[in-house]
């Protein structure tokens, strides 16, 4: 593995929830990253954000690490979960809640329900 991929591997294994994104969770710099971070912030998730715009090697490395061409990318307990479309679909279907429950990760269930009500 390259240095960048080793670093990514360590990060996603050392932290329960990691979002590789453009910008930060406080200040996203791309609509797709913004949508995912917005949902995660609203659901009260405790997660680590990695700004790929701050490190070109990570920006390329993350695409190779997951064999996935786009950013954002969400990892839970070291497993790649998906990008913006998949996270959005899983939030609306309740699959994301289930995944968090299965991994014993805390989130605001009421907030998740509100997102679903607003998009029903």
């Amino acid at each position: 593995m390259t240095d960048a991929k080793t670093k990514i591997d360590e990060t996603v294994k050392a932290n329960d929830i990691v979002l590789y994104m453009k910008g930060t969770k406080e200040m996203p710099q791309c609509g797709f990253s913004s949508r995912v971070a917005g949902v995660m912030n609203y659901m009260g998730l405790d997660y680590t954000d990695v700004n790929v715009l701050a490190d070109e090697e990570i920006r390329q490395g993350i695409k190779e690490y997951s064999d996935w061409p786009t950013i954002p990318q969400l990892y839970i307990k070291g497993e790649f979960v998906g990008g913006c479309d998949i996270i959005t679909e899983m939030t609306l279907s309740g699959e994301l809640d289930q995944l968090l429950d299965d991994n014993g990760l805390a989130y605001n269930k009421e907030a998740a329900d509100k997102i679903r009500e607003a998009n029903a």
Partner: protein
Amino acid sequence: MSKSAEIHKRLSDALAPTTIDVRNDSSRHSGHSGDDGSGESHFHVMLRSPAFEGKTRIARHRMVHQAMGAELVTSIHALSLDLDV
């Protein structure tokens, strides 16, 4: 061939869709980050195919990435996918 037509052709050839709609959303993102001025930066694809039967969401997206080819996928800024059987 426009990128929309290219995407449409490659996905039609590889995935035998029952429904396919490739939409160029680039004009909605004009002037945003990622707008390269080509008018071919942002695309949305809605595709229904029996090939997705029994596949996870990630697997379905990977099938589309593969069918499009790395060069086409990386040449556009944003690709939004709505995939189902």
